[in-house]
């Protein structure tokens, strides 16, 4: 076995800076596109787009779709699709709204405002979302009905189950603790955000160091130390910069005055308070980390990508691809339920049309984020960035004053264009 096909590249070509830092070119491209978009809107709106206030709003508007997009990555990577996510969100939202406003206070007699109400409601919502997702996954995996059909049916079914449960009425106001997951009603404040930011920096630096140590232990070549330093610097700056921006958004003085009045106090002169990181964004970051670990560092994730790359190979390697499908759709359902918490809490009530067209936004976010519909390729951070790009485009155009129909036309065109660019990029770099 000594004379197999020789490696023809004579010497390692001189590495450029991107290769030395081991950065993902596609990710850089997306970040670049996002930056151009933001700066462009900021110039056109005369500096109104990149204000702390607008960035705060953008992030909390993105959370619901971004959470679902992380799950959609797994669904699309295994060559399936889920068209029912918006409808499933509506059903979960309806179930949670009814649980906290009708069932628990009246039927079980806990009374409105009982401290357990929000948590029981969220648990019920998660259970319902997971079960519905698992049921759809079972139909796809074991009954071999195409996912497109199962979830297209699901779109109609779950949208109207939600309607039926609430008789089409808006249910609210939701529990005050529950509302904290919505965004502006639940933030960490300046100090809390800084502490969290520093913890995140510490965690990221430990991760970098640990990975380097492992590679050295196995005798692999590692990046030069200066490259690690640059990477650590970029990560630190990004995390602390994000915290600084969100902390720069201060609670309006009038609102603070009313808060003090409600407590029977007088607001001190010159008192200010920052919003800081919203709990919903924290939730998204937590989910992003968990989903990334799931994708890259667990057997489940490995099997998801292997099945997407070659279903037969996965099967022959002893992977139970049917059961895997159930798990993926159950996970998608659970994420829909979490999104339902965020979306309904942001609106402070459950409305009948909640989550309408979200399936398209979620799929678009995943696809713009580099998830290939042919399966096998996709990243969690890409999907979140995709969701952020979509949301920025939409709110930016609204801010500029583009008419609603034109906004949707542009978003649709951008989706197709993004996929075209991705196809051209893959051809150029020789990826199939």
């Amino acid at each position, binding site marked *: *076995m000594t004379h197999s*096909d020789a490696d023809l590249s004579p010497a390692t070509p001189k590495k450029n800076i991107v290769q030395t830092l081991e950065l993902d070119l596609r990710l850089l491209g997306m970040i670049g596109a996002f930056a151009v978009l933001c700066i462009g809107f900021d110039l056109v709106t005369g500096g109104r787009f990149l204000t702390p206030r607008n960035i705060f709003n953008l992030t909390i508007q993105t959370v619901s779709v971004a959470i679902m997009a992380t799950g959609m990555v797994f669904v699309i990577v295994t060559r399936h699709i889920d068209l029912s996510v918006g409808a499933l969100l509506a059903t979960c939202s309806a179930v949670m709204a009814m649980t906290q406003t009708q069932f628990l206070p009246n039927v079980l007699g806990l009374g409105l405002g009982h401290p357990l109400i929000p948590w029981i409601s969220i648990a019920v919502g998660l259970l319902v979302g997971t079960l519905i997702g698992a049921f759809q996954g079972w139909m796809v995996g074991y009954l071999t009905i195409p996912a497109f059909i199962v979830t297209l049916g699901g779109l109609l079914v779950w949208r109207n189950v939600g309607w039926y449960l609430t008789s089409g009425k808006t249910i609210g106001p939701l529990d005050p603790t529950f509302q904290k997951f919505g965004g502006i009603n639940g933030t960490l404040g300046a100090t809390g955000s800084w502490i969290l930011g520093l913890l995140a920096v510490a965690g990221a630096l430990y991760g970098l160091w640990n990975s380097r140590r492992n590679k050295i232990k196995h005798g692999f070549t590692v990046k030069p130390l200066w490259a690690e330093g640059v990477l650590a610097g970029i990560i630190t700056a990004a995390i602390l910069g994000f915290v600084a921006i969100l902390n720069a958004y201060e609670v309006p003085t009038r609102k603070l005055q009313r808060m003090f009045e409600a407590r029977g106090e007088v607001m001190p002169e010159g008192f200010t308070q920052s919003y800081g990181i919203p709990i919903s964004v924290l939730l998204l970051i937590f989910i992003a980390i968990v989903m990334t670990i799931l994708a890259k560092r667990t057997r489940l994730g490995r099997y998801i990508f292997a099945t997407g790359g070659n279903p037969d190979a996965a099967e022959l390697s002893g992977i139970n691809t049917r059961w895997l499908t159930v798990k993926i759709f159950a996970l998608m359902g659970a994420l829909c339920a979490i999104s339902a918490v965020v979306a309904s809490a942001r609106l402070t009530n459950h409305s009948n049309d909640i989550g309408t067209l979200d399936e398209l936004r979620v799929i678009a976010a995943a696809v713009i984020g580099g998830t290939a519909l042919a399966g096998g390729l996709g990243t969690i951070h890409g999907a979140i960035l995709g969701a952020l790009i979509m949301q920025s485009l939409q709110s930016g155009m609204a801010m500029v004053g583009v008419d609603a129909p034109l906004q949707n036309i542009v978003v649709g065109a951008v989706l197709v264009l993004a996929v075209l660019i991705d196809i051209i990029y893959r051809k150029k770099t020789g990826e199939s």
Partner: protein
Amino acid sequence: MAKFDINRDQTPLVEMRDICISFGGVHAVDHVSVDLYPGEVVGLLGHNGAGKSTLIKILSGAYQGDSGEILINGQKVEINNPRDARAHKIETIYQTLALADNLDAASNLFLGRELVTSFGLVDDDAMESECRKIMGRLNPNFKKFAEPVSALSGGQRQSVAIARAVYFDARILIMDEPTAALGPHETQMVSELIQQLKAEGIGIFLISHDIHDVMELCDRASVMKNGKLVGTVDVDDVTDDDLLGMIILGKQPGSSGAE
């Protein structure tokens, strides 16, 4: 070519007895019995659709036979899925190579049997390290550890598939057209590997279309036609034409009779 001494008095490594499987009324495999001894290479020959791949997929757990039994080292075993087959140290190198193109060599090597850290997370560094060790033995020129296997040449892909079978200490190796997609150079590499594995006492079923491959690499050949076993012969006792006659006409060498 030097043949290793194969002692056929001992218990066979594998015995497949009276195996049947049908798909929608078609008898893909019809009462077929084959066996395999340690250190032996048995060729399975036949036309497309003769049933050789189907027979072997019953052994590798991809299909479940309708009737018949499988004995490993004389013990009757149940093989219901690929995991069962692996538990009996049966490894298969499929014609289509069965690699996930989007994953790197190490991930493919360990697919379904990942090494994990104490936290239960997959240990990519440890797997890459193991992968480098075994590839260093099988194909020292192999350098593309970071790329997805879609970026590899046919020979490199083949060495990943072979590494997967060898790494996990296969006792029984099934090779389905291992040289079909390879150039002469790479075919040579595979035949050297087969000699090496024989010397270690591993039994190999080699499915092939190519009579010359079989004459060169195998000790015995079992020929199938239309789902039935035509016969099993010692390759030293027959000529290319005898084998051709078995494949095409389904007739036993030396006999002039029909089926």
